[in-house]
């Protein structure tokens, strides 16, 4: 009797796991990894990680990355990729900075410039990828190099923006009710987030709704899963791919502006390697490179996992800059292999 009791739940659990869709399985892995990592950090690295502000600082630091990663997830779900987002962020920062300080523009027009860059990128890259059938990687590689070069053509040196209107916006803090901690002097400091975080969370929610409940959102998955089948079912594959690239570029230009609000300066070296972090976050968040699988909530947790591990690495005393890059690469490698194994499991079924 005892034997049968212990034996029955086992296969059912295994069956339940094997019956999970790829999206859900990868999402669960990601969220589990994040919580395990954060708990490990609290246990082994002390109470610093317990303070709400530590967590909100991760959000403040990475608001732009969250937006860029969501944009990246969109194209990756349709089976594409866009590595121009990081360089585009630098271009947006530099253009806005020059506009605000040298041309005496307002924050609103700067935002319009950022969106304009996004729309231009979306139009060109989307057209080349969707309608001319050119590999998205090559297109966005060229886009990345163009943005890098264009940034230095706009202005070659780093400078901080002095525009007062912008400074006021940059310094705006939104206090989180009920959260806070006592600092070293024993004074209670309420926890805060920057405007960028609100924008990022709004984009996460909007995209989650878009991907889950709109027709175009479902088309993204259909095209990424199997473009030929989607086409037979009456999905306009080209338009879907175009929309994905368009949305990606526009959203990353918003991400660029959020990055600009966070750093408050223009520099050719801004956000270098951000595309890499965005891809890594998306992959860690369970978006498949092969397309058709992915979840925006997963991407959010991907960013959080990535930045938590970066914090852990520096808290462990590996302060040198290279350790962060190596850790990110190692984590990306690990999750790529997990994905590959998941794919194999699927083909065996």
């Amino acid at each position: 009797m005892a034997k049968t009791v212990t034996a029955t739940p086992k296969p059912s659990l295994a069956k339940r796991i094997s019956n999970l869709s790829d999206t859900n399985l990868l999402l669960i892995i990601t969220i589990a990894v994040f919580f395990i990592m954060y708990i490990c950090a609290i246990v082994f690295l002390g109470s610093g990680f317990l303070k709400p502000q530590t967590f909100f600082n991760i959000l403040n630091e990475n608001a732009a990355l969250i937006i860029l990663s969501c944009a990246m997830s969109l194209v990756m779900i349709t089976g594409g990729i866009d590595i121009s987002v990081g360089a585009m962020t630098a271009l947006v920062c530099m253009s806005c900075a020059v506009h605000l300080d040298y041309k005496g523009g307002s924050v609103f027009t700067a935002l319009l410039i950022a969106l304009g860059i996004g729309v231009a990128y979306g139009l060109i890259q989307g057209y080349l990828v969707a309608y001319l059938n050119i590999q998205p990687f090559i297109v966005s590689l060229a886009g990345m190099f163009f943005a890098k070069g264009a940034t230095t053509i706009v202005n070659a040196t780093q400078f901080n923006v002095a525009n007062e209107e912008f400074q006021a916006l940059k310094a705006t803090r939104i206090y989180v009710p009920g959260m806070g901690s006592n600092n070293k002097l024993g004074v209670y400091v309420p926890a805060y987030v920057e405007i960028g975080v609100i924008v990022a969370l709004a984009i996460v929610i909007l995209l989650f709704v878009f991907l889950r409940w709109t027709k175009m959102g479902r088309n993204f998955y259909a095209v990424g899963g199997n473009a030929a089948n989607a086409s037979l079912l009456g999905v306009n594959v080209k338009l879907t791919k175009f929309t994905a690239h368009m949305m990606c570029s526009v959203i990353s230009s918003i991400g660029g502006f959020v990055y600009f609000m966070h750093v408050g300066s223009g520099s050719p070296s801004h956000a270098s390697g951000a595309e890499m972090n965005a891809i890594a976050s998306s992959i860690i968040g369970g978006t498949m490179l092969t397309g058709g699988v992915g979840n925006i909530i997963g991407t959010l947790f991907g960013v959080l996992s990535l930045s938590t591990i970066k914090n852990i690495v520096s808290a462990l005393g590996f302060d040198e800059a290279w350790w962060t890059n190596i850790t990110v690469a190692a984590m990306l490698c690990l999750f790529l292999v997990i994905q590959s194994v998941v794919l194999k499991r699927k083909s065996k079924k």
Partner: protein
Amino acid sequence: MAQNGNQKKGGSFLEKLVALTRKQFFIPIAALTILVLFNLIMDPSFFAITLGTNSNGDPVLSGYLITILNNASELVILAIGMTLVTSASGGQDISVGSAIAIAGSVMLRILVGGPVNPGKIILAFLVACVVAMIFGAFNGVLVAYFKIQPMVATLILFTAGRSIAAWINNNELPIISEPLFGYFGNFIPGVALPTPVFIAIICVIIIMLVLKFTTLGLYTQAVGINPSSSRLNGIDPAKVKLITYIILGLCVAIAGFIKVSRFSTINYSVIAKDIEMDAILAVALGGNSLGGGKFNMASSIMGAYIIQFLTTTLFKFNVVSTALPAYKAVVVIVLVVLSAPVVREKLDSFWKKLSTKKSVKEAA
């Protein structure tokens, strides 16, 4: 008058032109012609070569053409490996720049401290070769056995590479003062041409012989065109892909050797920066499909020289080095758009329409 003459031949001339554009050599030769003409018109002194002496009193050739031949060496060597990788796996390795940093760093790590003699240089080179081939194999395994898209798999090393290179030397910048080490990237006393030119030529000869006398080229193309049918014919696609990545690793080590020898030191964040873009561009400019399959090595190598021609031309017209990528990106986009099948079809039908219109006119 000339127009009249053209119109008489009309269709056949256009047809010949269209047939010509389909030849693989068309793109590189057209690009080269445009560049040469541009330079001839802007400043014919671009093509002057002078024989002078360097600070040691040895005779050296100088001039923009020599600069092109010299600076293109690393690119040519990389283009060889990149062509094979592109052909077999239908994707590109974007980690070559970072891998060069690693190979160079390993070399300097061995050479630094103690006297530098020929034996030690050879040892350093061989160790760098092995290390670069291991990293190539790492990329290759991810691509061939884990079936990850090449550019994403190599993204791992692209990010981590320069950091690993800095880590190997503890972020120090060792300088090798021994002049012997500098010979490989500059001039051997008494020889007027820079050494990298010879190294590149040797590499080209070796790969041509390998392609001629072994099945490497055939297998690579077979795998690139159709992995499953080549599997049915007894070729292991994964193994062939892995081998191409290891060959690229070897190319990276040689290119890295030239790079560190040029300056006798290394700067981790700058060495071979953006070279992956140039190497991919060389393959594309050579008229090879970036989606894998058939390739033409000679065409790729010519592509590499043309890229350097473009870079040197841009430099000559005082384009800042940081702004270079923007111009090259435009070239890439124009190239990939022109070589995209969809565009080709449209152009073909456009030519056909044009030629039929002309023949109709003639008939009238």
